[in-house]
């Protein structure tokens, strides 16, 4: 199993290299891989439908609760087959569709990687592993959508898809982690076994919201659906694969997979059903307004995803069964229709339905495939789509009238859409198109034809997929399910509904233009809403980013300093006043000798003189006085070594000052009085802070210092009488080593900075 | 005892000379006259204080250092004065109104330095 999932990644990485071996037949060669996988999955069909799911566990990062545990049950198998079978057809198709495209090797890389990730999603039992694969599908789809990256629109669409699904992904991540935390395990099977623990927890609504965010964005539920139509910038094989058969179903898959854990509650019911219902109706409606073949299909896909979501929300046995059937039907016809759309685009050079017509003559094989797909989509017998719709109606009628009405309305609209997308380009008169169309090579019609055949076959012999679908529904419902599918149920209410649907559908199609005009008023609300938000969000993001940066990173060093100093002063003062103990401070003015007063005042006056100096030299002289005063303090309090060093260093610093700033212009007064006052206030706050800290430090001593050790051992062990020096070269010689290193680097730095002048050379 | 008295005397004289220099630099009217008072009395003051120190610490090491300091001060103080005076003259500091003679003015045309 590990090989099944991971080999895709390995092959993907090798794809660009392998491609060179046989560029011409690369599509066929690479399609062998999913075909083999499909066969492998088919070979396990017996065990799975017999209720003996396969489980494989490999440790990955146990410390993070991350294991590669794969579960092949009905639901997983259904999806895995969809992924591999459609994958086979798509890759075959793409080999021709993108033949000669410079980036074709990379296409294989990403599509194979995507496929492997998708398999990982539908097979993982570990939530974190599932999430890992989930994110990989988002990322690989980013590259697939942006495949034609020379186009601005493709890049924008790729980004949009990534941002929307990425946002959902992050929510899902939080949801997954919370779920694991609440439920005590990251294995879905373990969580499902104890779903009460999760659902009873006070954070359950949060978990639910997060998981929904992930699933709804991925499966393009309203209001997050807008990315999917934009994503039609992708090459058609990608749309066919990702945006009909696989990735967008990942959200639906997630809801199905987690419904034993999270489902069954009222929130689940209302939220999931509500979003699903809104999506199915709104997108079906929007589909009518599209002229781009692929966008029509995209909106219809969104609508179906809504239907599936709604069914998962309802959660009843019928609903789940219907979901499985409907899902399979959709995979079969929608992938086919996308491939058809791609072929039309490829052959005629346009996808605009208004420009297309009469293609049945020039592209007969494609036309056949398209017709089957469209009729199945329209829900007409004897195609599998009809069975799907029947199952849907059965589930809805078992529930309530509202959802039934929504279902019927959606089906009605989709009927018209199916006609628009699958029949209209082939019927009527031939039109003039940019290229002269004819049937594409077999690799490009194989897909629609094969899928069409399956639609017919399953429609006529529904018993064939019955067991698999039962097993899948069983996985969702966590109990054994025995479905019975048939084309003909007798003349009952469902049939009436179907007939009504067809009738209305025909009416809608025939009066499309009028209908469009009548309902136009609702369009902006539906269409512009969410994608407009995205645009707004982008603009807001950019605005706030630029604005924030302009405010914070404004380039004025003094403002940076003012900020830092203010933060320091405010935070430290607040902390001291709120937590500190001001009572410990002892003032002692009595013990100051005259010379100490004088020295202190001189130091103060010199500091102030430095600040107020009007010329550079005055400032330097005053600074020198400050430095010498400091040295004299060292003299006064028993630090001759320090005093000597300070005198020498201060003098050398002054010399450097004079050396360096020899040619600098005289001081100018730049600042206005209020600015200076503000800066003075900041300075005072910081200065007062340090005065305070010194007073505190001199008043408090919690523990005796370690200095006694030095006094005792400096001569005996360090062989020196000057304790300071012994500390410097021995006890704490490491400090000194670092210190002379600093000095050395400073010296070399000055040297190099003075001598190496790339800036000047380039300027001149 | 005698040593102590001599030591104290030198200390007082030395300090007095130094204070004299400090007072002079404040009181004198122009740069060069200030330098006259800032150079000579403090140099002598340091010498006196050094004698006092040498008497106070009867130690050969101290004595040598005292000699070294005295020598150093006597060597450097005039050089400092010379440097400052020259610089002051060159930047064209103004003489006191009572100045009677200036033989140097041909050598430099004083350039004014706004300090």
């Amino acid at each position, binding site marked *: 199993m590990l090989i099944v999932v991971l080999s895709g990644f390995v092959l993907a990485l090798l794809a660009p290299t392998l491609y060179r071996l046989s560029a011409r037949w690369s599509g066929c060669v690479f399609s062998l891989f999913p075909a083999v996988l499909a066969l492998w999955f088919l070979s396990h069909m017996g065990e799975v439908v017999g209720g003996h799911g396969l489980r494989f566990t490999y440790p990955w990062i146990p410390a993070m609760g991350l294991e590669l545990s794969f579960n092949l049950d009905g639901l997983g198998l259904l999806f895995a087959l969809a992924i591999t079978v459609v994958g086979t057809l798509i890759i075959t198709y793409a080999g021709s569709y993108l033949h000669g495209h410079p980036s074709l090797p990379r296409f294989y890389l990403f599509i194979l990687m995507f496929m492997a990730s998708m398999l990982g999603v539908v097979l993982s039992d570990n939530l974190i592993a599932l999430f890992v694969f989930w994110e990989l599908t988002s990322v690989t789809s980013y590259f697939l959508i942006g495949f034609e990256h020379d186009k601005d629109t493709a890049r924008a669409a790729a980004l949009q898809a990534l941002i929307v699904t990425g946002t959902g992904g992050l929510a899902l991540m939080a949801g997954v982690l919370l779920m694991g935390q609440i439920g005590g395990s990251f294995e879905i099977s373990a969580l499902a076994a104890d779903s009460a623990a999760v659902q009873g927890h006070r954070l359950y609504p949060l978990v639910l919201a997060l998981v929904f965010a992930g699933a709804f964005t991925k499966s393009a539920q309203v209001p997050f659906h807008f990315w999917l139509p934009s994503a039609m910038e992708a090459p058609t094989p990608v749309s066919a694969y990702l945006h009909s058969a696989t990735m967008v179903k990942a959200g639906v898959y997630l809801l199905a997979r987690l419904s034993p854990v999270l489902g069954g509650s009222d929130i689940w019911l209302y939220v999931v059903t509500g979003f699903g219902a809104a999506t199915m109706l709104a997108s079906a409606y929007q589909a009518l307004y599209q002229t781009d073949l692929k966008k029509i299909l995209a909106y219809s896909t969104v609508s179906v995803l809504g239907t599936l979501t709604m069914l998962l929300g309802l959660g009843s046995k019928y609903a789940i069964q219907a979901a499985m059937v409907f899902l399979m039907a959709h995979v079969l016809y929608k992938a086919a229709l996308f491939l058809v759309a791609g072929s039309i685009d490829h052959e005629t050079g346009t996808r605009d339905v208004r420009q297309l017509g009469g293609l049945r003559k020039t592209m007969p094989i494609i036309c056949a495939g398209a017709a089957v797909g469209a009729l199945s989509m329209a829900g007409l017998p004897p195609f599998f789509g009809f069975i799907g719709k029947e199952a849907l109606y059965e589930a809805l009628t078992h529930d309530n009238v509202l959802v039934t009405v929504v279902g019927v309305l959606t089906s009605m609209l989709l009927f018209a859409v199916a006609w628009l997308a699958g029949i209209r380009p082939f019927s009527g008169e031939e039109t003039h198109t940019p290229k002269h169309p004819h049937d594409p090579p077999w690799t490009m019609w194989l897909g629609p034809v094969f899928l069409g055949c399956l639609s017919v076959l399953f429609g006529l012999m529904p018993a064939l997929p019955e067991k698999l679908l039962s097993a899948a529904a069983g996985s969702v419902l966590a109990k054994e399910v025995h479905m019975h599918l048939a084309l003909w149920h007798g003349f009952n209410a469902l049939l009436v509904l179907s007939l009504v649907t067809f009738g209305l559908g025909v009416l809608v199609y025939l009066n499309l233009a009028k209908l469009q005009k009548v309902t136009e008023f609702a369009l902006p609300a539906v269409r512009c809403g969410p994608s407009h938000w995205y645009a707004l969000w982008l603009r807001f993001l950019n605005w706030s980013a630029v604005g924030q940066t302009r405010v914070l990173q404004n380039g004025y060093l003094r403002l940076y300093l003012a900020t830092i100093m203010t933060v320091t002063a405010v935070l430290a003062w607040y902390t001291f006043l709120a937590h500190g103990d001001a009572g410990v401070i002892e003032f002692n003015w009595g013990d100051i000798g005259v010379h100490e007063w004088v020295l202190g005042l001189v130091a103060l006056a010199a500091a102030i003189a430095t600040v107020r100096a009007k010329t550079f030299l005055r400032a330097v002289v005053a600074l020198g006085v400050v430095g010498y005063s400091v040295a004299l303090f060292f*003299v006064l309090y028993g630090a001759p070594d320090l005093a000597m060093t300070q005198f020498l260093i201060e003098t050398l610093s002054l010399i450097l000052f004079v050396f360096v700033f020899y040619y600098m212009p005289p001081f100018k007064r730049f600042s206005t009085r209020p600015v200076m006052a503000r800066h003075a206030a900041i300075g005072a706050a910081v200065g007062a802070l340090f005065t305070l800290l010194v007073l505190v430090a001199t008043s408090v001593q919690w523990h005796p210092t370690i200095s006694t050790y030095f006094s005792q051992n400096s001569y005996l062990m360090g062989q020196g009488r000057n304790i300071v020096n012994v500390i410097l070269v021995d006890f704490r010689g490491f400090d000194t080593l670092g210190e002379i290193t600093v000095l050395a680097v400073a010296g070399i730095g000055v040297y190099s900075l003075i001598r190496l002048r790339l800036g000047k050379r380039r300027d001149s | 005892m005698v040593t102590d008295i001599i030591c104290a005397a030198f200390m007082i004289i030395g300090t007095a000379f130094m204070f004299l220099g400090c007072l002079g630099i404040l009181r004198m009217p122009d740069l060069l006259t200030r330098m006259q008072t800032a150079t000579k009395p403090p140099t002598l003051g340091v010498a006196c204080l050094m004698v006092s120190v040498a008497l106070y610490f009867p130690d050969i090491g101290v004595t040598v250092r005292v000699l070294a300091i005295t020598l150093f001060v006597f060597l450097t103080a005039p050089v400092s004065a010379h440097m400052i005076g020259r610089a002051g003259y060159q930047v064209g500091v103004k003489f006191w109104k009572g100045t009677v003679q200036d033989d140097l003015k041909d050598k430099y045309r004083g350039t004014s330095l706004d300090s």
Partner: protein
Amino acid sequence: MTTLAFVLLAVMSLGIVLVFIRLLRGPNIPDRLVALDLLTTVGVGVAALYGIAFDEPVYLDVAIVLALVAFLGTVTFSRYIEKWAHHGD
């Protein structure tokens, strides 16, 4: 002797104040420089008095260093003042 040294230290401090006033008042840079030079010379004296006051001859070493740096500083400053003068700043 120690007491005497302390008293003289106070006198010396007063002297420092006087020099400091000159340092602040200028009016020209050379005036300040003279003041600074004198300040360090006084510092040498203070170090000597301090050594006596606290019976600690190590301050003599400080005095030597102080004398050295005073000279160095003064010389450098004067040199640059001259340079400035010639530079026409």
